């Protein structure tokens, strides 16, 4: 398990570092985030947590219902 974690964390670091060289190197398309090294790492991390949070909030306060929500008495049909 610890070895897997080491591989995982080194991957995280490697891809952000690679991005540093790239941003200095070319600075590709013209979006505000194109010049931030590791933007997609940050976006992935925060985006993932935000999606989970939004989905859970929506589900908890509004959308999630019991499984018999639509059919409480099936013999009515």
């Amino acid at each position, binding site marked *: 398990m610890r070895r897997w974690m080491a591989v*995982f964390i080194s*991957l*995280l670091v490697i*891809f*952000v570092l*690679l*991005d540093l060289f*790239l941003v200095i190197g*070319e600075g*590709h*398309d*013209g*979006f*505000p985030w194109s010049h931030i090294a*590791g*933007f*997609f*790492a*940050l*976006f*992935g*991390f*925060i*985006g*993932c*947590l935000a*999606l*989970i949070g*939004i*989905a859970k909030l*929506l*589900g908890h306060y*509004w*959308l*999630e*219902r*019991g*499984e018999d*929500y*639509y*059919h409480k008495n*099936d013999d*009515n*049909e």
Partner: protein
Amino acid sequence: MMTMSNFPLAIIFVLGAMLLPVLPRRARSWAYLVVVAIAFVFLLHLEAGATLTFPFLNYELVVCRVDRLSLAFGYVFVIMGFLGGVYGFHVKDTLQQVVALLYVGSSLGVVFAGDLFTLLVFWEIMAVSSVFLIWARRTPQSRRAGFRYLLVHAFGGSVLMAGVIWHMVSTGSILFNHFEGGIASYLILFSFALNAAVPPLNGWLPDAYPEGTVTGSVFLSAFTTKVAVYALARGFAGLELLMWAGAIMAVYGVVFAFLANDGRRLLAYHIISQVGYMVAGVGIGTKMGINGATAHAFAHILYKGLLFMGMGTVLYATGRSKLTELGGLVRSMWPVLILFMVGAFSISGVPLFSGFVSKSMVIYAAELEHQGIVVLLLNLASIGTFLSIGLKLPYFTWFGTDRNLKPEPVPPGMYVGMALTSAICIAIGVYPALLYNLLPFAVHYQPYTASHVIGTMQLLIFTGLAFWLVMKKLHAEATITLDTDWVYRRPSRLAYRVFSVEPARLFGKVEELSLRLAQFAVRLGANPPGYLIDTIRTARCAFFGTKKPAPEPDTFSPDRYRIPLGIMVLVVLLFLIILLAWDIIT
């Protein structure tokens, strides 16, 4: 003239569907594959630019119009029809095999339709044939879901028909080309968007697809929505509304997918999300956008088919598809996990898998048009896709809580089907030219650039990190999620009461009342004076509080109620006196 270069492929499938039931049962699975293989041979001979027309009333029907756009969709539909047949090789249910052929055939019919009338006919056949893939599961849930599916698509078909007729009347043309606006084209756009499951017209998809049979849902996942993407690309390319609808739809799908408990419903929501990329590509409408939409449809049909095959195999082996009832299957079903992960990596856009080379074309098309918000929304959807399908679904199905499930053995055809589909997903990812050469326009795009690969890897790895941090707190919940199907499902109870229960009660009341009236008439008629006397006596007893005397007999007897002669004489005399008195006074 009908030749090999303009042969309508739908004919092959219709003939096959008619032939299949009369063949011996053991030959039917082979026959299915042979029919699709023959169609593939014919498909290879189609030539871009060829058309086949028939005169019909005052119009020319273009039953087959071949160009690079329809060919690209035609290829993937036939390939998927074949792979679905391999996966469902064990199926002994002739109904499913026949309707699968009709469904694939009518989808091809739409894709090669050059006029709106032909389009409409095949559009309706698609809806009617596909519903049997849901009903074939033969459970109460699938029966109900199938009915809802059919009603929604019947409605969409009617809107399409209204639009087509309006278009015919107002422009005098029935050719299916780019629409130029006006009410007719909005009606047609509505019905296309309904089939593409663009929110808020998306409720039918996650409602119906998880209720299909194990093999039926593999077919369902591939055709209806992608036919709609084709139709949108043909008729509404460059409509900015679609670009925004697509981008929002991509995120909408992943948010709802995260809440789903049924594994196949989770996948169904990701169809909405992935179709969002295609709709966005169509809305951007540039050559890159249309190429991206087509490429993504091509790749998506295969990896989504693969994912439905994977979850279908789990359902087949365990009888379960809910995350709250699955877990710990890794020891017994690890080959399915590996094949499923190929699909999961493809849909997540991991480099070397097919989604990476197709999804990025749509995002790149948005980048070229400087639509920054669209780019971010689509990337956000990628995060959600990897989160739900790449991490959460496999975690809860193959790992998570070990529920000591004893899966049944799985037919070899299912593994072969999944393996073939996986192979194509990887082949496209490793060698994108395979896909790019089929696209409508020449491709000037290279997915494997350093910045793209690095950006994607960052996105995915950090999504993984975030998931790993909250993983212990996530647990599947045995709930359902409300979606726009609420609009017709919940009030259906009210409608059921208003149109069925209450009228029935009203009729019951009226019937009871008329019966009582008839009873009263019978009693009155049997003994009118007796009834009158009884009524007066009862009223008198009630008024004075005296004891009630014995009732009069039920039947009339003339002797009992004969008026004494003296009274009659008295009445006559009184009458004479009054007459006399009257005479005197006047």
